[in-house]
């Protein structure tokens, strides 16, 4: 009944990624980050920090080596999931799980299920929900102007004008808060989702079928970790790209798809 497909452990970065410099110990890295943070208080705004995906291919495509804090990002699901944006929400939850601090989540209607967020590593206790009805964008901007938050997520249905998105982007830049818009739409391929906005990145997350079952698997094989096709359709200062990854684990990290898994199945 349950998954018989073996999923190899995610390779640790030290043995797969060739590094020229010695890996700094965590405490040193922590100290460096602290020093950098002190320096930033006096020199620049709070922006320019970013949170990496820890997948080299994706991080290299992004100009700041990860999702930049203090900027607006858009995420939408592809296909029939555009309406509920479940995959996009999990993707966002994975990013937020690796940040610290309170989050404001602006809803249009309350269909979010908090235990599902907890399963992606995002503790719902950190989130303050605001049901804003038609005022999603003004409430999001209000949250972005409050420096105590670490991120503001809003679920937006319909069009997003360049002016509105620029307002959000400017508010996020000023306070260094991560701003994320989950774009939802009633129709699958809503052209409104492809219109240009001031967002720094735009992601499209599509669910991919799980790999074929092993031989001798039951008629209906079990579920492994979900697979996503991540499309970076717009990226300011970077190139768009497409990657196939495994969905967020319990700590909010994406996984590389082990291509070898299929191969070994075929060989067998």
């Amino acid at each position, binding site marked *: 009944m349950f998954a018989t497909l073996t999923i190899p452990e995610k390779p640790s970065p030290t043995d797969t990624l060739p590094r020229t410099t010695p890996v700094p110990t965590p405490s040193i890295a922590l100290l460096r980050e602290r020093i950098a943070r*002190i320096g930033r*208080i006096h020199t620049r705004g709070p922006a320019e920090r970013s949170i990496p995906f820890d997948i080299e291919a994706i991080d290299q495509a992004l100009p700041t080596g990860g999702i930049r804090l203090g900027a607006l990002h858009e995420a939408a699901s592809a296909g029939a999931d555009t309406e*509920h944006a479940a995959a996009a929400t999990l993707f966002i939850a994975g990013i937020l799980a690796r940040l610290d601090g309170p989050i404001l989540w602006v809803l249009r209607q309350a269909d979010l*299920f908090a*235990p599902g967020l907890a399963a992606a590593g995002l503790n719902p206790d950190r989130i303050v929900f605001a*049901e804003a009805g038609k*005022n999603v964008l003004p*409430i999001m901007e209000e949250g972005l102007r409050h420096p105590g938050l670490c991120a503001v997520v809003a679920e937006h249905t319909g069009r997003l004008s360049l002016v509105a998105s620029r307002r959000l982007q400017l508010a996020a830049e000023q306070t260094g808060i991560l701003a994320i818009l989950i774009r939802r739409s009633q129709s699958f391929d809503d052209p409104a989702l492809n219109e240009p906005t001031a967002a720094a990145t735009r992601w499209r997350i599509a669910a991919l*079928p799980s790999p074929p079952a092993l031989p001798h698997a039951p008629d*209906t094989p079990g579920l492994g970790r979900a697979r996503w096709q991540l499309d970076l359709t717009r990226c300011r200062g970077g190139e768009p790209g497409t990657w196939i990854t495994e969905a967020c684990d319990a700590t909010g990290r994406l996984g590389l798809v082990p291509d070898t898994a299929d191969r070994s199945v075929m060989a067998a």
Partner: protein
Amino acid sequence: MRRVVSVWFPTLPTDRLWRPEEVGGPRQSPDLPLVTATSRIVVSANETAADLGLRPGMKVAQAQALVPGLQVCDADPAGDAALLHRLAQACLRYSPLAAMDLPDGLWIDVTGSTHLHGGETRLLRDLIARLKRQGLTARAAVADTPAVAHAVARFGAGGVVPPGSNVMGGFPIEALRLPNDVLANLRLMGFERVGPLSAAARAPLVRRFGPVLAARLDQAAGVLFEPIVPVTPEASIQARRTFVEPLLTAEAFSTVIATLIAEVCGELEKASLGARGLDLRFERVDGTVQAIRIGTARPVRDALHLGRMLDERLERVDPGPGVEAMHLIVTRADPLGFVQTASSLLENTSADIAPLVDRLINRLGEAAVYRIAPVESDVPERSVRIVPALTRPTGSWPADLPRPVRLLNPPQSIEAMALLPDHPPVAFTWRRVRHRVRHADGPERIAGEWWKRDREWSSVRDYFRVEDDSGRRFWVFRRGNGNDLETGDMRWFLHGLF
């Protein structure tokens, strides 16, 4: 749309005599007949006395002859008015505008604040129950204008008069609050009810009785605005500014708000208090009072924060012909000491989100800003509850349960094909789209909580996580365990999306 509550105390003078603060009151049971009198004339009678036929205006000697053993106390209109004033102050809990309606009533302008008390019906019920606990008989009505509410509370059955309905026509002309000589003359002319009176030609009536009759008729019809003069809460921190020239613009109001807030915050600081609620009243040139009310989640005396919250509400104020005075009142204050702020450059101070929560609540209402807390329940709908945004996190979230990120509420019916008793569906149809199931995990059996509802004694849901051929993952369940129809009708539902 304006909504006004009128409260009528039919036996206020006699009820008051039984209140604990009255030392010289009667000493026998409150059920015995009791009247108050001045100059040997009955002024008011309690319920028992009224049932025995005693009416205001009777001679005391006659009343005593009718009812042997009747208790008679001195009437004290000033004491009644003082009690009404205190009651009006207590009614400020419902709205910033509560006024005395002498000699025997109250008015509360509840425009836009009924939702805070669960709607108009529940507000009235709560109000009557509170007054009853104080030993006061009262009847209340809510209507579009003070005049209609006043009439329905006294001459109707009380309760909620729906917006826009015209109910005055059937009431006797006494409901119009006219002087006694005018009433007597109108009766002589044959007018008994308000309806024919308001339909009659206005000009001859006004010539005979003066403008008061026309004014009362217009107030009852809602044509003429009737201001109520609100009471101020007792001994609170407040600040007031009167202006030589009436103010009209939002910028001017903002400037005044800043000075008022600065004054109030100074007072709060002296008293080591922080404001939890503020009322700002705009006294207009035409005698009406408009008010905005804000509340904060924690005690605050940050002038900037309070000022901004008031500024955001300014758009709801109609300055009309101009505002001649503004009055800021701290309706609720809690202790707030001084806090030393951290000055370390290194440590991340945990930021306070209370100001943001205040402003969101100010804009969206209290019910729309919340946190979600886990509940020890396996039934998905009951596994979360909404808690106020600033409560401390309690409980722990289940980490290893496969739960969807979007929950459909209520679960949507799907048509599924599955082998009984415990196989996942082979395919299902949701919203006329057929999904073929390629991978599935389950069942996860969730039994009903019989200790909550008897109907759940034997009910069972079997949950499956399924993946269709496009890779989308769904959380579906079957009502029933697959064997026994008593556990459910074996229909399939889609409950969530991964």
